[in-house]
């Protein structure tokens, strides 16, 4: 840094005034931008990608008609546990419709609230707690998704994992079938099939 400063000093000799004004403007722009930034939560790349995956799942999974109250009822993506997506997931689904159902995002405090949703992302690190939630939701047509290592063993349906720094997915077909969800072959084609 001191070297840069010396260089700058030397350079300033050449062109004093324009340099100063330009720098002033730049600092102003940067400050304004920083102010503007505050209050925005932007997720890591990993969760940006996962948010888009969640949205993609709604396109490649069919829910039984009974899971919607009316033809215009929303398709609800629920987040249980700490929200890792910021506002990114909402941005992702904003304006999207699946077979006429608008896609919306809800944040839940407990599993009881989550019972009406279609896709549930469990951001619950504790394995036991996750297990209890899955038990409580058993039989409901909810596509359950999580990062948990033993999530599929516990009866969860889709698990994200990283391999060579890339996001991959693993699917528990038995669990999704038991909940009357139809997973398209396109999604199965790129996923690892979990065999209990």
């Amino acid at each position, binding site marked *: 840094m001191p070297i840069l400063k010396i260089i700058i000093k030397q350079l300033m000799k050449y062109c004093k005034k324009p340099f100063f004004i330009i720098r002033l403007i730049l600092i102003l722009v940067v400050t304004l931008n920083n102010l503007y930034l505050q209050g925005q939560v932007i997720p890591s790349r990993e969760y940006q990608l996962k948010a888009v995956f969640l949205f993609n799942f709604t396109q490649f999974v069919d829910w039984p008609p009974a899971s919607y109250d009316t033809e215009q009822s929303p398709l609800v993506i629920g987040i249980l546990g700490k929200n890792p997506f910021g506002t990114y997931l909402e941005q992702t689904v904003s304006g999207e419709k699946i077979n006429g159902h608008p896609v919306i995002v809800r944040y839940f405090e407990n599993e009881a609230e989550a019972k009406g949703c279609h896709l549930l992302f469990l951001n619950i690190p504790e394995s036991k707690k996750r297990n209890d939630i899955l038990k409580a939701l058993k039989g409901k047509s909810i596509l359950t998704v999580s990062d948990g290592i033993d999530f599929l063993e516990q009866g969860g349906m889709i698990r994200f994992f990283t391999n060579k720094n890339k996001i991959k997915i693993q699917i528990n077909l038995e669990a999704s079938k038991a909940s009357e969800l139809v997973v398209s072959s396109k999604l199965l084609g*790129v996923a690892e099939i979990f065999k209990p």
Partner: protein
Amino acid sequence: MAYPINARQHRISVLCLSLLLSLLLALPVDGYAQLSDSLSSPEALKRLSLEELMNIQVTSVSRRSEKLNEAASAIQVITQKDIHNSGAKTVAEALRLAPNLQVAQVNSSQWAISSRGFNNVLANKLLVLIDGRTVYTPLYAGVFWDVQNILLDDVDRIEVISGPGGTLWGANAVNGIINIITKSSADTRGLFVEGAIGSNLPGQGSLRYGGQLAKNLSYRVYGTGFKLPSAVDTSKLKADDSWSMIQGGLQLDWSPSNNNKLTLQQNTYTGDPNPDGGDTTSIRARGTNILARWDHAISEKADFQLQAYYDHTWRDFGNGFTEDLKTYDVDWHNRNALGRKHILTYGLNFRLMDHKVTNLELFAFLHAHKNLYRYSAFLQDEILLLNDRVRLTIGSKIEHNNYTGFEVQPNARIAWLLSKDQTLWTAVSRSVRTPARIDRDFFLYLLPGLPLISGDSQFHSESMIAYELGWRTQPMENLSISLATFYNVYDNIRTAEPGPPPFGIPITFGNGVRGKSYGVELSATYQLASWWQLRGGYTFLKKDLSVKPGSNDLNKGSAESNDPRHQVVVQSSIDIPGGIELGAVLRYVDKLPDPYLKAYTGLDMRIGWRSGKHLELELVGQNLLDSRHIEFIPSSPSPRQIERVIYGRVTCRF
């Protein structure tokens, strides 16, 4: 200094440089938004297929490759699978798969490759990079294709950008950039052995072994060699220009943490191309290059790349003339998100080319030894506008070279997301081709002391202003189409000017041609079924060059180039159950105007069979439609016909 810098120019450049430095200091340490804002806006990510999503690095430190895919430019990508399915044996053959390139094989070892025209054996308006290393000879500002060898299985992809890239890549990226990117050694583990032989292929073989030295530290070592067939002359006699090459090298990739990636690469080769053929002494070409690169993600909001390489090439032309070039290059570039709406990219580059030739009595570059220094700085800002639907990129490179001093290469690009699957883009850029040694320092004597041709110390840069308009769409999940149009305005293109009367010698180089070129590049990829992919494109190109008043160009304004007006490439890849692959590449190249050469159609076909993971057998036929044809007529040696090749290849992987 031999070429004093204009004081005013100097001041402007210093101003720009100081502006850039002040920007660096003004940047806050934290508080800028997610770096990948524009690269991974929900809209951008939603356009990707599931497979593509799964291929994105969670923590990406590769700045440029990612950027290219989003760039508002005419980019086409040749994947490893495309290369493999085509049966290509060499890098140059693989480049035939890019519909936006003009690729012509001149004889057994020489190629004429360019984009958007101005093609010639000594083509000088295309920039070629192999893993970030510029392969360039200051002798004529072009590429010696006969030493650009790679084990093709190592290639991850080849990105071909037609159009100017001066702002990012600097001088000589006038009409296009070829970016050859090899796989990380983490993806080439195990033993790989291949051998090929056939009618008209004396032999080709490679051996590679890759493994892991420690956690996150992988390596590969390889050796590859070939002997390529002789072309035939116009009377169907063997030209005896068959030649061979061997090359070896290693690569180390180390990711000590998620945000650091270090790469060390080394290649060494020796070859004996013999373009003249017959009894002529072969050229001897040798080289070694070493490259080190550090990619670092400072945060999720900023990353940089620091790269240094040393590239030594040596070439003995067999007649006593030799060229010895040592290139030292250090490159640093940084990217920072500045607020939520700006991504700043800036960088510095220094290059020294220590260029030494051994002159002949009547053929000389003076001085025989010259140190060519090049230093440059660039700054580019990517601005998101109108709800992130419009991306405006503006920037410029300022570069200094020995011959012409400072050169400025600005560009402005706009990408507009019309809808989820449609992008309209447009760009205006300026690029230059700075003088090469041939333009300034070359002398060809009729008799000692009496030059016939002499370089001109007044020769300045060729320049181009390019106007581009393009459209990209994906009307269906399995079909993507790209249309790029361009209108290039050239000035100061090289001419050969006769000397004073009565004899008109020495002939010198001038900047006497100007003009324009325009064209259309249409390309598409169509996945008809999970087992059948079609890709290809059509390129239309028209040049309209004229000699400026005061110039008496002996080449009559041809700019020493010869380009087809129409060109078509179609590649089909079919996977049949049982591990059978059928590939075909059809290409049509229109007639060349001057010297005239008739149009030709080439067809390459390949049938491959994979038995499990370990064994693959292939049968490839190249140029199946005729037994031989001419693709390009060079000024010397005499024209050669390229013959049909049929070869078989066995590949084992363990």
